[in-house]
């Protein structure tokens, strides 16, 4: 497929001839590394354009070049057909190109109005004109169809609303190009719907939007076109509705995506009766979020947990592993009725938990990869039985090799690794404890497709080696792929536990959504 054969037909007539923004032969080099290699990219007014690719494909480099955060080594950027040169993000903003990043760059301690207007706040006699500022902010919010009181403090609002405020800020300066980088990664279904509604409104006004997301569903839901990058080069530009998912994934991965569809599934439990549950939970209730849950984690088996955000999937994992206190229920580990009273006790019992918040509750970015891996083991051993430096390195090295952590450099700060490799470091840390039960809460969130497949396969291998695994993921297909059995959570209750073979993505979706129509009352997630 060539990359110029898809002519966008959803853009206004006059714009069809000329893109709003065009990158021609965009090349970025860092020393000898070429991270972006002669990439062409077109963006038309009033379209939502997705930029897809694995980590390292050059997505963020391209975005940085367009928003002035870094300079092209070769190639040109055309704005309205005229060549432009952005020396800073400020230049790009002046030209109407704004980016809203995953980590919201707003000020939680100030009002919504200030967060929208600060920097260009209306002033009278040199003093901030508060009334005018609120009015203007309200007008911007109104324009987006958002009913948010501009006088309220930003931190009072959910992440989703904060994100919408960030968009409002970008638009208050008449942005013509809006870059949304992973805008939905922390939003639930209802909040996504709200965001998509806003995006649709912006499209109508002729704003061009670059939408970056790891969620294929969302890309297909909101994007008109998609440009795929791989290893810094352009693969192609496609019309989303004519582009099959499998083809998209294949374009991103560059090799056959067969691995995505099935992993060598454990030949399900021939001797079911013999295998006993290593960890079993009866009638677990916790903080009103989990009601009367029964769960069995069987040796050599992966239990997938499927549920919407707010269904209590994280709360279940936390209560089972002693991170949070359960209000009622019995936890049996290895036959003995003793629930862990804290993560430390859980680890001693062989139960480890990997949090969904990789960055805040997992990886210590400043520490080296090696230290991150041996951290928990050293903590468990206690300070008196120090693991020697050489032994530590040896141990860490073996895990780096076993999990194929890249780059295989023990001394590199863990924070500099890609999301997928950070997740592997986290897994290595837990596996170094020689656990019997592994509870993984969204281990593949926000990482690229290739790393996702690797982690999925790794989980399968671990189960094959006799570990009991509980695997939580927001992506239903993934739960089906990884889990031998799937427990469906709905409103804090386990609705059903079924063998994965008996489920299809559609039937699972139906079960997960059961009892509530999609997009009804907003599901609230405690954070």
């Amino acid at each position, binding site marked *: 497929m060539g990359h110029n054969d898809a002519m966008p037909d959803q853009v206004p007539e006059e714009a069809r001839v000329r893109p709003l923004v065009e990158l021609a032969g965009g090349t970025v080099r860092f020393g000898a590394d070429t991270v972006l290699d002669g990439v062409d990219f077109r963006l038309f007014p009033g379209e939502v354009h997705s930029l897809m690719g694995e980590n390292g494909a050059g997505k963020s480099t391209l975005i940085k070049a367009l928003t002035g955060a870094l300079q092209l080594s070769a190639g040109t950027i055309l704005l309205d057909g005229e060549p432009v040169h952005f020396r800073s993000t400020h230049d790009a903003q002046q030209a109407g190109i704004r980016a809203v990043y995953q980590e919201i760059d707003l000020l939680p301690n100030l009002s919504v109005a200030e967060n929208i207007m*600060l920097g260009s706040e209306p002033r009278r006699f040199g003093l901030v004109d508060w009334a005018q500022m609120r009015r203007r902010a309200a007008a911007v919010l109104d324009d987006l169809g958002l009913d948010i009181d501009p006088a309220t403090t930003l931190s009072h609002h959910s992440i989703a609303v904060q994100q919408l405020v960030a968009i409002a800020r970008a638009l208050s300066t008449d942005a013509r190009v809006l870059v949304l980088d992973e805008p939905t990664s922390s939003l639930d279904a209802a909040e996504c719907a709200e965001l998509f509604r806003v995006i649709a409104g912006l499209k109508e006004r002729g704003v061009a939007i670059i939408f970056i997301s790891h969620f294929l569903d969302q890309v297909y839901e909101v994007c008109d076109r998609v440009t795929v990058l791989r290893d810094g080069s352009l693969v192609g530009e496609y019309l989303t509705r004519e582009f099959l998912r499998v083809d998209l994934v294949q374009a991103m991965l560059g090799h056959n995506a067969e691995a995505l569809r099935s992993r060598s599934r454990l030949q399900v439990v021939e001797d079911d009766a013999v295998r006993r549950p290593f960890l079993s939970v009866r009638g677990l209730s916790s903080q009103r979020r989990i009601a009367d849950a029964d769960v069995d984690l069987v040796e050599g088996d992966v239990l997938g947990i499927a549920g919407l955000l707010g269904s209590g999937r994280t709360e279940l994992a936390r209560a089972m592993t002693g991170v949070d206190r359960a209000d009622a229920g019995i936890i049996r580990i290895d036959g003995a009725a003793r629930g862990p009273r804290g993560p430390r006790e859980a680890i001693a019992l062989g139960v480890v938990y990997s949090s969904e918040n990789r960055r805040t509750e997992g990886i210590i970015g400043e520490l080296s990869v090696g230290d991150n891996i041996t951290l928990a083991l050293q903590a468990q051993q206690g300070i008196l039985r120090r693991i020697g430096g050489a032994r530590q390195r040896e141990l860490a090295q073996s895990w780096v090799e076993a999990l194929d952590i890249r780059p295989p450099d023990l001394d590199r700060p863990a924070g500099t690794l890609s999301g997928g490799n950070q997740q592997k470091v986290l897994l290595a840390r837990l596996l170094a404890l020689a656990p019997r039960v592994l509870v993984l809460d969204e281990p593949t969130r926000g990482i690229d497709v290739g790393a996702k497949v690797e982690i999925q396969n790794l989980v399968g291998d671990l189960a094959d080696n006799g570990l009991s695994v509980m695997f939580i993921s927001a992506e239903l297909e993934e739960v089906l792929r990884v889990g031998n059995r799937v427990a469906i959570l709905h409103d804090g209750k386990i609705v059903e536990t079924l063998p994965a073979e008996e489920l299809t993505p559609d039937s699972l979706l139906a079960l997960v959504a059961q009892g509530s129509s999609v997009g009804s009352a907003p599901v609230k997630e405690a954070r």
Partner: protein
Amino acid sequence: MSTTTTTPTAGRRIVPPRLSEYARTFVARHASVMPMLAALVILVLILIGAQIHFGDFVNPRTLSSLLLDNAYLLILAVGMTFVIVTGGIDLSVGSVMAFTGIAAAQMLDHGVSSAIVIPAMILGGAVIGLMIGVLVQYFDVQPFIASLAGLFLARGLAYVVSLKSIRVENEHVIWLQSTRWWFGEWYLTPTGVLALLTVVVGALVMKYTRFGRTVYAVGGGEQSARLMGLAVARTKVLVYVISGVCGGLAGLVLTAYSGAGYPRNGIGTELDVIAAVVIGGTLLTGGVGYVVGSLIGVLVYGTIHTVISYMGAEQSWMRIIIGLMLLMFIVVQRVIVVRAERRR
């Protein structure tokens, strides 16, 4: 999420909102003033308690002298509020006050005109503040360490000027203290007026200037503030300069108040100032705080001081009570912050 609905704006509520809704709106808009209101409530409770206990406590004379006695503390607290709201700290203020005070007393003793001495005091404070600000901003030194350096420097300079107390007989400086403007039973001194002016100007600057809003923005998230195109570097230097200017001004007021310059003045005062600012509802983590809150904090501090004098008790009780109150306020602030986070 009472303030957000997923419906478009057309259907705004027409039904009159209930009282609880007003309360919710108030919290959504003004959660950050809660600690300040709590301090106000405590101030009122202390005053009522003292009035009941002593019979005649809340009278114009006591309250007037409260402002007079704590004028220098109030001025320092205003400067400190700026610094703490950016997320910084300034430990140098007590020493700066002592240094400018003793230097002024020495100069006046040598017959230098007060028209030169007073601006020189302010300038001296500003220079030390500038030094701290530059260290913090451009050399990336922790505010704690940078201002500790400022503390030692200013204190050392004060000892260099004189080891002994120097009396001040300059009429202009004495005037600042000895003048009483009476309003019935109430009175104000020029030092009190200076302190109140500092509060008013400080509060207006914080609320109504771009600089003031940038102070809050820096405290809320330096990186975000920078991305918003705000003048972060300038602001961070300037807050220490302001604190230094307040230090110089406080030096003037204290010199007038005590009628002398003394190099050991204000040892530990920086901690009293921080305590008063925190009691007044400013978060030590930055981003939240009000100059008016610091006024309340200083009044709480001063009132407890006066109450203990009235009781004839050891002033060490003062420290204990302030310590306990600080603890309580920090816990209250924590609770408010945690609850705000949980709501999301």
